[in-house]
């Protein structure tokens, strides 16, 4: 074989193997850039309410979740709305520029992005809202909560009762 071809083959093999090795060594590339459980994750301790303006909408990310990005003050937050199929059927009409109030569990991913796993989202100008999780954080699409699509165009806020403290799925990583 031509020496140049040998060198090119060796370099290609090196680049591929180093990429695989780096992924294996640093534990990255496991299909979760954020490292978060965006489908079913929720923690009552980090529940917060954020009001902001929608910057962009994404009907389905690589995990099939509908998302929107909003700006609240200086903070950019990615709101995870749940599976795109569920959102298409039960979600409310939103577009960039709309002002929304979102209540949900906040988390910072391994990619540095702040995520909000939405429990309820309200479009403030039309006062339309949809509840995506029950008060303990169980998602509507997984059969949790008292009823599907709790309030829509109801004109009244969903009642939020106190939630039990502590962690859900609290795996520990001691040092």
């Amino acid at each position: 074989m031509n020496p140049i071809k040998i060198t090119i083959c060796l370099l290609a093999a090196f680049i591929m193997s180093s990429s695989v090795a780096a992924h294996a060594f640093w534990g990255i590339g496991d299909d979760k850039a954020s490292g978060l459980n965006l489908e079913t994750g929720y923690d009552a301790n980090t529940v917060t309410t954020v009001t902001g303006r929608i910057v962009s909408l994404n009907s389905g990310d690589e995990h099939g979740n509908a998302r929107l990005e909003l700006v609240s003050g200086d903070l950019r937050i990615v709101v995870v709305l749940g599976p795109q199929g569920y959102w298409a059927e039960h979600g409310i009409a939103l577009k960039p520029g709309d002002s929304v109030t979102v209540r949900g569990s906040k988390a910072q991913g391994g990619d540095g992005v702040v995520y909000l796993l939405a429990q309820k989202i309200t479009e403030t100008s039309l006062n339309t809202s949809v509840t995506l999780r029950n008060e303990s954080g169980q998602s509507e699409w997984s059969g949790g909560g008292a009823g599907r699509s709790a309030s829509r165009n109801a004109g009244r806020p969903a009642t939020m009762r106190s939630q039990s403290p502590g962690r859900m799925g609290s795996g520990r990583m001691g040092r």
Partner: protein
Amino acid sequence: MVAFLLTVGLSWFALRNYSSAAPVADDNLRGLALTIASAMEGVAGRDPSLNALTSFQSPEIAYAMLISPSGRILFHSNPDLTGNEVGDGRYRSVLASGVLGEERVRLGTGEYVYEFQAPFHLSGKVSVLRLALHTWRSEAVMRRAKFGVSLIISLLVLGWVLGGTVYLLLRRQAAQEERLARQNELERLGEVGAVLAHEVRNPLAGIKGYGQLLAERLPDGRERDYAQLIVRESLRLEQLADDILLYTRSDAKQLLTGNLSAVVGQLSTLLAPQLEIAGVRMVVSVAEQVMVNCPDDQLHRLLLNLLTNAIQALPDGGDIALVATVDDGEVDISIADNGPGVDPEIRAVLFEPFRTSKARGAGLGLALCKKIVDSCGGTIVAGEAPEGGALFSVKLPAVLPEGAA
């Protein structure tokens, strides 16, 4: 050696840098937690109702809660949880010991946070502040260290791969140049030898002829012995001239077929007197009608050279075994003796021309053998016989009888 030391040094530097990054990240988080705790204590001291704490916000806080000694949540960053009972008793160890507690905890969202617990003085009573901090910003130092390790190791591997490739290429080029130089040298030697041989043959024929004439006509005695000596030496020179001419002949591949069984039979008869004089026993094992892709005259020359060498290696007598087997389209001919064997040091140059360890020899015999075998599409190697003598193994393409394919 320098490259190896450089690799070890850089790897050590990268790993040391990485291992020192984790404590730095922890120190960052601990310092941040202490600052926040101190600020919160100040705010709570000014407003014992804790209402002012609700306005206390930091992007680094995942959540914060204040736990009373009885386990009730006095304050929580999620107001809905204030007043609830805390779900675990981990705060008690901090309360009892008064020592800070810190660990990594995975939240229900899947995020790993740094959890910090510290005694919190509120209106003369001691409560526990539990802070969960996002780690992403503080762990930037670890990400940089990881990147540094990846970069250094990648560059080292790349350097070794490229260095190895360049080394192999240079070595191959050097070997090629050496081979070329040797080939040119041999070509020049061959040309000179061929001219010399050609020029020597004609006068030699005359010397040999007159020597034979004298040997026939002279009466028995010293003069006749001299004449016979002239004839013997002339024959030796003639043989040498023939060898040189054969060696310098074209390298065209041989397409003629030879009968190995017949050639071996002829050689056994031809060498019988020589073997008897030398006290050498030759055992031959060749099946009938073994045909090879090598013409009879070349085959004859090849085997004669190898057998003559073997006989010469046994001046005090011994055994020679000539065995030929057919296997997978090849004929394997082995000639083994129980003489002193071939010196391993000269084995590498054994088949090169004009290299000999004999006092009387031009060093063309084995070179000719190699040339014949090459022209027939075979291989020849020298090794050690099981009995300790020399072993020459020749592989030639077999020619199958018609209809046997």
